[in-house]
């Protein structure tokens, strides 16, 4: 779960990281009032859960409260990568002498946190990683003894930070590490961390991505979810415990397991169709969750055919069949449905579908199921 800049900033501040504090406005008038209160010049920044907002015009300076109002109005009317901007952060403008990058994530292969710093801050760090990987310095953090001060000194020195700032840099790095671990984050990033013209360090941006699996032990953080940033279907999927991604095609997919779901989508494309979504019902789904998944697919008006592909292990085909039939009983959709149920309790599952009396196309192999679904979508 991604947090907004202003949310991440508040968390960082709790960990002793110096941040450029600001307030959130949802209207141009509020932005103007904040600019008056904070004192111009101010920076107005779109709060939207995608990257690249700078390039999209989502970060601008205002010299006067009037200008702040006008700029806020402009930014609040933007769509950035398809997401409408609903909030802006208004902060004091900083005098910047140097921009660096400081972030921490998980190194999967080494199975530990890895902290990264670069003298090239304020830019797309993935771009830096691609074009000049040597510009990013990394230290692996042992989970048992934590980030060591000598490691932060190494980072500070290797990115050429003035020695007088090493101690403050170390404190910020330790704060970032602690916020990362204690919030169960999968990423925590300050980009840019700037040296101001007064010679102090200041976090000018803040980004935290939380590990969804860790949210259950952070009810306070879970509440930070911005439901404005979700589509109704994404929200319904999340609440039902489904992994769901909306796509542009015509064939609604319901699969158990992310790998099989992707393989199913790949095969639909292989046979000339276009999947309308990625939808993984997860392991061991009960009938209710299956029903929620089917309703989600049916709610998309672009869907012309449905492909249900279940290979039961921990998931039981009879539960899946019960979930399907319960929705058909209430909705009675006029769409071709291809259902392939194999594995655990597959005989019971097929029997339930047959007994229901609905016309459901069946298939034995995945290829057969995909071909039938593509054909059905084209002819409907």
């Amino acid at each position, binding site marked *: 779960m991604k947090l907004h800049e202003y949310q991440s900033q508040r968390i960082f501040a709790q960990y002793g990281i110096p941040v450029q504090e600001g307030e959130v406005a949802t209207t141009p008038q509020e932005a103007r009032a904040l600019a008056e209160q904070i004192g111009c010049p101010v920076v107005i920044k779109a709060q939207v859960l995608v990257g690249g907002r700078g390039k999209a015009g989502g970060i601008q300076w205002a010299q006067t409260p009037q200008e702040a109002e006008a700029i806020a109005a402009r930014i609040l009317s933007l769509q950035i990568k398809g997401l409408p901007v609903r909030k802006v952060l208004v902060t004091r403008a900083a005098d910047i002498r140097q921009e660096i990058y400081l972030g921490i994530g*998980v190194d*999967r*292969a080494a*199975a*530990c*946190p890895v902290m990264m710093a670069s003298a090239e801050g304020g830019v797309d760090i*993935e771009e830096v*990683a*691609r074009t000049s990987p040597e510009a990013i310095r990394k230290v692996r953090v*042992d*989970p*048992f003894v934590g980030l060591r001060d000598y490691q932060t000194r190494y980072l500070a020195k290797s990115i050429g930070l003035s020695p007088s700032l090493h101690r403050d840099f170390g404190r910020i790095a330790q704060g970032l590490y602690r916020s990362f*671990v204690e919030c*169960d984050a*999968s990423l925590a990033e300050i980009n840019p961390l700037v040296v101001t013209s007064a010679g102090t360090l200041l976090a000018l941006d803040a980004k935290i991505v939380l*590990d*969804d*699996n*860790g949210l*259950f*032990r952070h009810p306070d953080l879970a509440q930070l979810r911005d439901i404005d940033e979700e589509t109704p279907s994404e929200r319904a999927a999340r609440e039902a415990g489904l*992994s769901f*991604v909306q*796509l542009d095609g015509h064939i609604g997919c319901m*699969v*158990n*397991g*992310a*790998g*099989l*779901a*992707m*393989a199913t*989508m*790949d*095969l639909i*494309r*292989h046979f000339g169709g276009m*999947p309308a979504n*990625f939808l*993984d019902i*997860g*392991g*061991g789904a009960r009938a209710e969750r299956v029903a929620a998944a089917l309703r989600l697919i049916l709610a998309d008006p672009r869907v012309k055919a449905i492909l249900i592909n*279940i*290979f*039961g*292990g*921990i*998931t*039981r085909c009879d539960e899946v069949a019960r979930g399907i039939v319960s929705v058909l009983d209430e909705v009675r959709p006029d769409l071709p449905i291809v259902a392939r149920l*194999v*594995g*655990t309790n597959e005989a019971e599952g097929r029997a339930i579908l047959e007994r229901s009396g609905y016309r459901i196309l069946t298939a034995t*192999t*995945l*290829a057969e199921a995909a071909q039938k679904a593509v054909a059905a979508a084209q002819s409907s």
Partner: protein
Amino acid sequence: MAILVDQTIRLVVQGVTGREGEFHTRQTLDYGTPVVAGVTPGKGGQFACEGRVPVFDTVQEAVAATGANTSVMYVPAPFAPDAIIEAADAGLGLIVCITEGIPVHEMIRVKAYLDLKGVRLIGPNSPGLLTPGQAKVGIMPGHITMPGPVGVVSRSGTLTYEIVSALTARGIGQTTCVGIGGDPIIGTRFVEVLALFEADPETQAVVLIGEIGGNDEEAAARFIAERMTKPVVAFIAGRTAPPGKRMGHAGAIIEGGTGTAAEKIAALEAAGVRVAEHPEQIARLVEEELG
């Protein structure tokens, strides 16, 4: 021969009295794998699965009473880290964790602890592993497998069943099928399983099933190029996944141009691995490799 599990297994099931735990324990027993004990705190002294499995309060008691040597767990995510460490502290050499949804920071600590103790973990978020005719540990359906010369290793669950099932349908049996799990931090990775298959005299070819996200397939490609003599056939799910979107479990995300299917396929092909275009093609490629 086989890898990781064989007929010497004595299995303890952690979380045996839960809904999933009991269901799959029955299937494991029906497959003929000796489930010698179950563990559920507070239910010591009871029996699970119609009296077939004695339940203990702690893994240590279960091991002492039954000589269990391998654990499989169906414990809910909040309790799974403790259960894994309990199994390691009880002296078990192989722990298989089916549980999904364990926080990544917990797994970082658990994995560091297991490395320290020298205990092998498969998973979490794994379907388990299965040596056909010898041992079924976890939730892989037994009837889709058959004994034979092909080792299977996969990050995926159900996609593995799909491919194993197709192998079996074509008469190609398996030495061992290993689901390493779909989470970012897992106990055992592709390279380690490939090394075991390379060393196993019965395994003649290996099927590797990967997916987008991370760079475990790239590491596997390097290992195959440098160290493997046996043929490897691969499949990578997520060729058509749009970049920047999280596709289901934590393993399947593409960000910033790394971890795409195209990159993984290129790395594997450069290592001499034949990569199938769709799952059902795999069996045919394996057949060709086996000659």
